[in-house]
């Protein structure tokens, strides 16, 4: 059950825009490939062609030596090629069994053969190591379990080549480990895996070969063990990247905190949290998925039910009932969920940029001219790359959308800005731009809170890092002690000092299950 794939001069155009310029390489059966490239390099488009979601404009796809052209993802599935989307393709209200057989239902005469489908589901669930009743509705599963269902679905359809797009983006370290074990097992069974990820450490650990794409072209394929992470990044960007992080400014000392929060509780997510941010300080928030960081700040902004002891801004007590109050006081929040909560993707760039500060443009009539001038300035300041100012936000690449989202939350000129996963899903170049921007914000005397799952980023950027676990603030790590190991130990509850305080790692398990 192996499959050999050869791309031969694949060209893809969307209208007059050519996104793949004759890509040729092959995938040997039973290997794990890491597919690397910046946003917009064309890797997703190529994989969509391989899995039948897109058709090439030119070139040929060979499967086991035969030229093939898939008319649909179903066609590709029949050939054993399955793409697992970053955002899952599961019907939330259907059960695991119903999802696994969706569109491929077993029948006996006119009726569904429930028993056979259930038995097969049990078999594939065992194969992926998911111990759940096949009749469980998918909406009751956590993210990691849904992913396993997706993989089980692929196996039930006899997948011989699995494409995984950023599979670990929302997994905890434990879940990630389990996924890697499963990948090794699938590989042993002869399944080819194409692994798309921005996380180079994972690529280094799990793949046999690395394939790099850039600007719609194939760059290289090399055995993973012959490359360092730094070399991978350099190949992706096409130039030497140095100084990903700006040099740290010394931590501000002695100043009155800009923002001080006491006794903030978000029921079900965070309990009795206190922290403060000084002017010019970059404060990190670390923690595993489900530790309650995002929910904490959504609570602070009044986006979730919460209780709070006291919030002080520049030493004066304030009340925040909703995001409007927060903006009026000078606090803004960048959501981790760019498409769902951050940007109106169907709106133009201008309307997105000014939305949070729209009142300043209304006297009482809006002034599109002034808004357009603001957009021009923002495009310059934030380095947003766009062909025209009149496009919709959806037409920007991920990194540029993120820069627009940043420009939007900074447009009201906040004193304190809370950035939740500011570099999620953006490429190395854009990441660097965003890091330097964050430093600039701090230098301007703002308080910056960075919530991130990338520990490297927190270590490279922050003056202090708060670590949350199971809805509680477990540690506040200052610059001298800031290492990835230190943060992980607090986040997972394996730190000696934490345990001495009688704080057991078991309690967060129940919290994460809510996710």
């Amino acid at each position: 059950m192996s499959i050999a794939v050869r791309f031969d001069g694949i060209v893809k155009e969307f209208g007059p825009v050519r996104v793949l310029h004759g890509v040729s390489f092959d995938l040997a059966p039973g290997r794990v490939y890491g597919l690397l490239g910046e946003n917009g390099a064309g890797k997703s488009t190529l994989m969509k062609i391989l899995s039948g979601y897109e058709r090439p404009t030119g070139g040929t796809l060979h499967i086991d030596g035969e030229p093939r052209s898939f008319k649909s993802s179903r066609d590709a599935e029949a050939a054993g090629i399955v793409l697992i989307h970053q955002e899952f393709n599961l019907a939330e209200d259907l059960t695991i069994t119903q999802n696994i057989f969706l569109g491929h239902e077993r029948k006996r005469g006119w009726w569904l053969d429930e028993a056979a489908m259930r038995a097969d589901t049990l078999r594939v669930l065992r194969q992926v190591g998911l111990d759940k009743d096949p009749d469980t509705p998918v909406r009751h599963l956590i993210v990691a379990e849904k992913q396993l269902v997706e993989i089980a679905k692929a196996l039930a359809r006899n997948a011989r080549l699995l494409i995984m797009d950023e599979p670990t983006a929302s997994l905890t370290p434990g879940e990630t480990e389990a996924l890697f074990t499963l990948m090794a097992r699938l590989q042993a069974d002869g399944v080819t895996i194409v692994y798309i990820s921005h996380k180079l450490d994972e690529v280094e650990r799990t793949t046999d070969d690395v394939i790099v794409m850039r600007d719609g072209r194939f760059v290289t394929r090399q055995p993973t063990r012959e490359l360092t992470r730094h070399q991978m990044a350099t190949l992706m960007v096409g130039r030497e990247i140095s100084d990903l992080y700006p040099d740290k400014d010394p931590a501000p000392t002695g100043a009155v905190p800009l923002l001080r929060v006491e006794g903030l509780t978000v029921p079900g997510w965070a309990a009795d949290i206190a922290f403060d941010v000084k002017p010019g300080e970059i404060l990190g928030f670390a923690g595993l998925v489900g530790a309650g960081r995002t929910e904490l700040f959504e609570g602070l902004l009044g986006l979730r039910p919460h209780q709070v002891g006291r919030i002080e801004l520049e030493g004066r007590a304030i009340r925040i009932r909703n995001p409007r109050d927060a903006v009026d006081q000078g606090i803004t929040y960048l959501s981790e969920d760019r498409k769902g909560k951050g940007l109106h993707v169907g709106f133009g760039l201008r309307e997105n940029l000014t939305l949070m500060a729209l009142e300043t443009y209304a006297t009482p009539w809006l002034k599109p001219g002034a808004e357009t001038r603001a957009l021009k300035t923002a495009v310059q300041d934030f380095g947003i790359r766009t062909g025209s100012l009149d496009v919709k936000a959806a037409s920007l690449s991920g990194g540029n959308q993120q820069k627009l989202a940043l420009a939007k939350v900074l447009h009201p000129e906040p004193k304190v800005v809370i950035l939740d996963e500011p570099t999620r899903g953006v490429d190395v170049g854009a990441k660097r731009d965003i890091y330097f921007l964050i430093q600039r914000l701090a230098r301007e005397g703002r308080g910056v809170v960075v919530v991130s799952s990338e520990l490297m980023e927190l270590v490279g950027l922050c003056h202090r890092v708060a670590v949350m676990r199971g809805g509680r603030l477990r540690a506040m790590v200052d610059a001298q002690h800031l290492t990835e190991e230190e943060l992980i130990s607090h986040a997972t509850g394996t730190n000696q000092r934490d345990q001495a305080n009688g704080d057991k790692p078991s309690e967060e398990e129940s919290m994460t299950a809510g996710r």
Partner: protein
Amino acid sequence: MVDRQLDQPAPPRFQRARSLGSRLHAVGPILGLVLLCVAGTLLNPDFASLDNAMNVLTRTAFIGIIAVGMCFVIISGGIDLSVGSMAALIAGMVILLMNTLAGSIDQPVLVVAIGMAASVVLGGVFGLAHGLLITRGRIEPFIVTLGTLGIFRAYLTYFSNGGAITLDDTLSDVYSPVYYTSVIGVPIPVWVFLIVAVAGALILNRTAYGRYVQAIGSNEQVARYAAVNVDRIKVMTYALLGACVGIATLLYVPRLGSSSPTTGLLWELEAIAAVIVGGTALKGGSGSIIGTVIGAVLLSVISNILNLTSVISVYLNAAVQGFVIIIVAFLQRRK
């Protein structure tokens, strides 16, 4: 969706092609209206007369004014099914109020003025109630207004004992010019329709409130996270529609001088149809007041042409309108 490569600036040709497409989309309803008018003129020269044009516009005014308010509600992602019943109830209550006041105030003009103001206020209050039930009560707009659709009409039927509530003759004489008078050759209802439409277009496109309405309909979560006071904007939208219904009603009352259980029947569907034919998507997010006005006019031109010509039976009026709605929806699917 697609890992789009628009990091490189898209070529200008691509841009132009797109904006041409969206321009075509915007002129679609106008084009339809023009073609319809040409057809009408060819079939019956009377169609093109000024008299007939004013007749059509006057009859469009009620639905058109309501459709302007409905356009805001639909763009914000909501719906209001109750507007027809609401108009009937407002008409009934206002007539009862004026008849009662006529006993104690002997200036009919003042009584009528109070009645007209009451009409707008009542509409605003009903709309406010819808908005609060939808936002504070967290009930779907479809369900809230389906409920009040029944409630409003039932109360009118109850007040009128199943018959008609009729305006006092003296008051009727004072009030009827509001519907029947022309200023500079244009009937008052048409002027009001024009003013409401222009105000609506300005509010939607040139105020922060209008932008917020679009932002909420496009993605409510994003709007909420961007510090838009979603609940307040939504309540205002329903109140605005209620006020529009009140304005339409104050123009309608002098026409017949009465309200009965059949008053305003199916107006909600005509208003929604006008909005949709005008190019506003039922799922909200964006839309156009000008389109809505054209949509309303287009639908009444259809019935006017059927009345003036014998190509298609008048009895098929609703069928022709229905076909037009479906054709428009077909042309506008998945841009």
